[in-house]
Protein backbone atom coordinates (compact mmCIF):
# COMPACT_ATOMS: atom_id res chain seq x y z
CA UNK A 1 0.00 0.00 0.00
CA UNK A 2 1.52 3.34 -0.96
CA UNK A 3 0.56 6.72 0.46
CA UNK A 4 1.61 8.68 -2.60
CA UNK A 5 -1.86 9.20 -4.13
CA UNK A 6 -3.55 10.07 -0.86
CA UNK A 7 -2.56 13.74 -0.91
CA UNK A 8 -4.13 14.23 -4.36
CA UNK A 9 -7.22 12.28 -3.40
CA UNK A 10 -7.77 14.30 -0.23
CA UNK A 11 -7.12 17.56 -2.04
CA UNK A 12 -9.67 16.54 -4.68
CA UNK A 13 -12.22 15.60 -2.00
CA UNK A 14 -11.66 18.77 0.03
CA UNK A 15 -13.88 20.84 -2.26
CA UNK A 16 -17.65 20.60 -1.63
CA UNK A 17 -18.51 21.14 -5.32
CA UNK A 18 -16.31 18.23 -6.31
CA UNK A 19 -17.91 16.08 -3.61
CA UNK A 20 -21.32 17.01 -5.04
CA UNK A 21 -20.17 16.00 -8.54
CA UNK A 22 -18.84 12.65 -7.25
CA UNK A 23 -22.08 12.07 -5.39
CA UNK A 24 -24.08 12.64 -8.59
CA UNK A 25 -21.85 10.33 -10.65
CA UNK A 26 -22.17 7.72 -7.94
CA UNK A 27 -25.98 7.85 -7.78
CA UNK A 28 -26.85 8.57 -11.43
CA UNK A 29 -24.00 7.10 -13.44
CA UNK A 30 -21.76 8.72 -16.09
CA UNK A 31 -22.35 12.30 -17.20
CA UNK A 32 -20.75 14.98 -19.35
CA UNK A 33 -19.61 18.40 -18.12
CA UNK A 34 -22.67 19.98 -19.79
CA UNK A 35 -25.05 17.56 -18.04
CA UNK A 36 -23.33 18.29 -14.72
CA UNK A 37 -24.09 22.04 -14.98
CA UNK A 38 -27.65 21.00 -13.97
CA UNK A 39 -26.24 19.61 -10.73
CA UNK A 40 -24.03 22.45 -9.45
CA UNK A 41 -24.60 26.21 -9.83
CA UNK A 42 -21.44 26.95 -11.80
CA UNK A 43 -20.45 27.33 -15.45
CA UNK A 44 -19.58 24.43 -17.75
CA UNK A 45 -15.99 25.67 -17.79
CA UNK A 46 -15.84 25.56 -13.98
CA UNK A 47 -17.34 22.04 -13.99
CA UNK A 48 -14.70 20.97 -16.51
CA UNK A 49 -11.93 22.30 -14.23
CA UNK A 50 -13.29 20.33 -11.28
CA UNK A 51 -13.57 17.19 -13.42
CA UNK A 52 -9.93 17.65 -14.45
CA UNK A 53 -8.88 17.69 -10.77
CA UNK A 54 -10.96 14.57 -10.08
CA UNK A 55 -9.52 12.83 -13.14
CA UNK A 56 -5.97 13.74 -12.10
CA UNK A 57 -6.62 12.17 -8.69
CA UNK A 58 -7.94 9.02 -10.41
CA UNK A 59 -11.42 9.44 -8.96
CA UNK A 60 -13.18 9.73 -12.32
CA UNK A 61 -12.38 8.51 -15.82
CA UNK A 62 -13.51 10.28 -18.98
CA UNK A 63 -14.44 8.67 -22.29
CA UNK A 64 -15.15 10.28 -25.59
CA UNK A 65 -18.83 9.80 -26.41
CA UNK A 66 -20.17 11.98 -29.17
CA UNK A 67 -19.12 15.62 -28.92
CA UNK A 68 -18.26 15.59 -25.24
CA UNK A 69 -16.40 13.32 -22.87
CA UNK A 70 -18.54 11.47 -20.35
CA UNK A 71 -17.16 10.88 -16.90
CA UNK A 72 -17.71 7.93 -14.61
CA UNK A 73 -16.72 7.32 -11.00
CA UNK A 74 -13.60 5.20 -10.40
CA UNK A 75 -13.60 5.01 -6.61
CA UNK A 76 -10.60 2.71 -6.02
CA UNK A 77 -8.22 5.56 -5.07
CA UNK A 78 -10.71 6.69 -2.43
CA UNK A 79 -10.74 3.32 -0.72
CA UNK A 80 -6.94 3.15 -1.03
CA UNK A 81 -6.67 6.53 0.67
CA UNK A 82 -9.06 5.40 3.42
CA UNK A 83 -7.05 2.19 3.89
CA UNK A 84 -3.92 4.27 4.15
CA UNK A 85 -5.52 6.46 6.82
CA UNK A 86 -6.54 3.35 8.77
CA UNK A 87 -2.94 2.09 8.59
CA UNK A 88 -1.59 5.44 9.86
CA UNK A 89 -4.10 5.27 12.72
CA UNK A 90 -3.08 1.71 13.58
CA UNK A 91 0.60 2.74 13.58
CA UNK A 92 -0.16 5.47 16.10
CA UNK A 93 -2.14 3.11 18.32
CA UNK A 94 0.93 0.84 18.46
CA UNK A 95 3.30 3.73 19.09
CA UNK A 96 1.21 5.19 21.89
CA UNK A 97 1.04 1.78 23.59
CA UNK A 98 4.82 1.57 23.33
CA UNK A 99 5.18 5.13 24.68
CA UNK A 100 2.96 4.32 27.65
CA UNK A 101 5.03 1.20 28.43
CA UNK A 102 8.26 3.18 28.01
CA UNK A 103 7.10 5.84 30.49
CA UNK A 104 5.92 3.26 33.05
CA UNK A 105 9.38 1.74 33.09
CA UNK A 106 11.20 5.00 33.86
Amino acid sequence: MTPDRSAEVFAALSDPTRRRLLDHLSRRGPASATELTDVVPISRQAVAKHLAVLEEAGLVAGERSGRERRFRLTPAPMSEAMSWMAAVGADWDERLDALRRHLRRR
Partner: protein
Amino acid sequence: MDRVNRRIELPAPPAEVWSALTEGISEWFGAEADLRPERGSRATFRWPDGRERGAVVEAVEPERLLTFRWLPFERVSGGGTAMVGPGRVELAIAPSGRATVLSVTEWVAAPAREAEGALG
Protein backbone atom coordinates in the same frame (compact mmCIF):
# COMPACT_ATOMS: atom_id res chain seq x y z
CA MET B 1 -10.80 12.94 6.69
CA ASP B 2 -7.24 13.80 5.75
CA ARG B 3 -5.86 13.43 9.26
CA VAL B 4 -5.57 11.00 12.13
CA ASN B 5 -6.13 12.20 15.70
CA ARG B 6 -5.32 10.40 18.92
CA ARG B 7 -5.46 11.65 22.49
CA ILE B 8 -4.16 9.75 25.50
CA GLU B 9 -3.25 10.32 29.11
CA LEU B 10 0.27 9.29 30.03
CA PRO B 11 1.43 8.32 33.54
CA ALA B 12 4.27 10.85 33.77
CA PRO B 13 4.74 14.62 34.17
CA PRO B 14 5.18 16.82 31.05
CA ALA B 15 8.97 17.07 31.45
CA GLU B 16 9.34 13.28 31.23
CA VAL B 17 6.90 13.00 28.33
CA TRP B 18 8.78 15.77 26.48
CA SER B 19 12.02 13.90 26.97
CA ALA B 20 10.42 10.73 25.59
CA LEU B 21 9.05 12.61 22.57
CA THR B 22 12.44 14.11 21.75
CA GLU B 23 15.66 12.37 22.87
CA GLY B 24 13.77 9.17 23.62
CA ILE B 25 11.74 8.96 20.40
CA SER B 26 13.52 5.85 19.13
CA GLU B 27 12.35 3.95 22.21
CA TRP B 28 8.70 3.89 21.12
CA PHE B 29 8.23 5.26 17.60
CA GLY B 30 8.94 1.99 15.83
CA ALA B 31 11.86 3.57 13.97
CA GLU B 32 15.32 4.83 14.93
CA ALA B 33 15.24 8.60 14.67
CA ASP B 34 17.89 11.27 15.23
CA LEU B 35 15.35 13.94 16.12
CA ARG B 36 16.53 17.17 17.73
CA PRO B 37 13.98 19.58 19.17
CA GLU B 38 15.26 22.48 17.06
CA ARG B 39 13.18 24.35 14.55
CA GLY B 40 14.45 23.70 11.02
CA SER B 41 16.55 20.69 11.97
CA ARG B 42 16.34 17.56 9.85
CA ALA B 43 15.73 14.10 11.20
CA THR B 44 15.98 10.69 9.57
CA PHE B 45 13.70 7.86 10.62
CA ARG B 46 14.92 4.30 9.86
CA TRP B 47 12.54 1.39 10.14
CA PRO B 48 13.66 -2.18 10.86
CA ASP B 49 12.65 -3.21 7.31
CA GLY B 50 15.22 -0.82 5.87
CA ARG B 51 12.79 1.95 4.91
CA GLU B 52 14.03 5.48 5.61
CA ARG B 53 12.17 8.75 5.68
CA GLY B 54 13.29 12.29 6.34
CA ALA B 55 11.53 14.97 8.32
CA VAL B 56 11.99 18.64 9.14
CA VAL B 57 11.15 19.98 12.59
CA GLU B 58 8.72 22.89 12.25
CA ALA B 59 7.61 23.97 15.71
CA VAL B 60 9.15 23.47 19.12
CA GLU B 61 7.64 24.69 22.38
CA PRO B 62 9.40 22.75 25.15
CA GLU B 63 7.01 20.59 27.15
CA ARG B 64 4.09 21.81 25.00
CA LEU B 65 4.42 21.22 21.28
CA LEU B 66 6.55 19.43 18.73
CA THR B 67 5.67 19.48 15.04
CA PHE B 68 7.55 17.94 12.16
CA ARG B 69 6.86 17.65 8.47
CA TRP B 70 7.62 14.47 6.50
CA LEU B 71 9.72 14.98 3.40
CA PRO B 72 7.84 13.70 0.36
CA PHE B 73 10.03 10.74 -0.46
CA GLU B 74 11.32 7.67 1.27
CA ARG B 75 14.24 5.35 0.73
CA VAL B 76 13.17 1.75 0.46
CA SER B 77 15.17 -1.35 1.36
CA GLY B 78 17.15 -2.29 -1.73
CA GLY B 79 18.26 1.30 -2.23
CA GLY B 80 15.51 2.81 -4.36
CA THR B 81 13.68 6.05 -3.63
CA ALA B 82 9.91 6.33 -3.77
CA MET B 83 7.85 9.50 -3.84
CA VAL B 84 5.32 9.52 -1.05
CA GLY B 85 2.80 12.15 -0.10
CA PRO B 86 3.65 15.10 2.11
CA GLY B 87 2.56 14.78 5.72
CA ARG B 88 2.86 16.43 9.07
CA VAL B 89 2.89 15.23 12.66
CA GLU B 90 1.89 17.40 15.59
CA LEU B 91 2.50 16.26 19.17
CA ALA B 92 0.92 18.52 21.80
CA ILE B 93 1.18 17.87 25.54
CA ALA B 94 -0.48 19.45 28.56
CA PRO B 95 -0.44 18.62 32.25
CA SER B 96 -3.46 16.81 33.67
CA GLY B 97 -3.16 16.46 37.41
CA ARG B 98 -0.01 14.42 37.91
CA ALA B 99 -0.30 12.95 34.43
CA THR B 100 0.12 14.41 30.94
CA VAL B 101 -2.34 14.44 28.06
CA LEU B 102 -0.79 13.90 24.65
CA SER B 103 -2.69 14.87 21.50
CA VAL B 104 -1.30 13.54 18.24
CA THR B 105 -2.38 14.67 14.79
CA GLU B 106 -0.90 13.28 11.60
CA TRP B 107 -1.98 14.94 8.38
CA VAL B 108 -1.72 12.66 5.39
CA ALA B 109 -1.86 15.52 2.92
CA ALA B 110 -0.21 18.89 3.45
CA PRO B 111 -2.64 21.50 4.80
CA ALA B 112 -3.92 23.68 1.94
CA ARG B 113 -1.87 26.75 2.70
CA GLU B 114 1.32 24.73 2.49
CA ALA B 115 0.42 22.82 -0.65
CA GLU B 116 2.51 25.10 -2.83
CA GLY B 117 6.22 24.83 -2.30
CA ALA B 118 5.93 21.99 0.18
CA LEU B 119 9.23 20.51 -0.97
CA GLY B 120 12.29 21.46 1.08
